[in-house]
């Protein structure tokens, strides 16, 4: 059985080698055959035709992390919703009430973060003055 089992992976192995080979061959060929005449313009990074402005590896604003944190939490909500939706009819009213409580708790969190001003992307006009 073990022999059989391993041999069933042979097509995948062949496919793997083939894909690697083709990709490698194309890169090798373009490197061998293609003409190379580097100029400063060609070597500079391409940013939609604009002149590059500084290094792209600078730290992101903390705001992005805040959004990421909030996203993770509300993202997982979808996981439960889908599971519930699949068996919606079997669970009936009971499931509906339970999910309502769950969603209500999430809404509380949402109200909290809204009132705390986490969602204000730019500082509010009134707060500046």
């Amino acid at each position, binding site marked *: 059985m073990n022999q059989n*089992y391993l041999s*069933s992976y042979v097509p995948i192995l062949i496919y793997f080698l083939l894909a690697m080979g083709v990709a490698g061959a194309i890169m090798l060929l373009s490197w061998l055959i293609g003409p190379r005449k580097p100029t400063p313009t060609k070597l500079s990074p391409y940013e939609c035709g604009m002149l590059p402005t500084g290094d792209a590896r600078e730290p992101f604003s*903390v705001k992005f*992390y*805040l959004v*990421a*944190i*909030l996203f*993770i*939490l509300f*993202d*997982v909500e979808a*996981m*439960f919703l889908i*599971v519930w939706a699949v068996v919606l009819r079997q669970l009936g009213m009971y499931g509906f009430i339970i999910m309502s409580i769950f969603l209500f708790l999430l809404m509380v969190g949402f109200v909290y973060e809204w009132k705390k001003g986490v969602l204000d992307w730019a500082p509010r006009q009134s707060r500046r003055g």
Partner: protein
Amino acid sequence: MHVPLSYYLILSAILFGLGVLGFLLKRNIIAIFMSLELMLNAVNLSFVAFSYAWQQISGQIFVFFVIVVAAAEAAVGLAIIIMIFRNRASLNIERINLMKL
């Protein structure tokens, strides 16, 4: 076609081990954090494999809760990391040594 249970378990153990190694060896907090997630997901793989082997749905339900807890942990962890970065401007774990054992 049937993949034996032991294959899943070995893969899960390897992933968990990699997570432990990463946790112990990495120096950047974010990388340590990713190692933790790897450990949790290795456990999830075990749960699903066992769940299939026993034909018991409860293992899969456990996975849902693990995912949720992992998300909550990730959120809190990221928040702590931001807090540290704001106060110290470094994420190297060796520089966070104000208190000695």
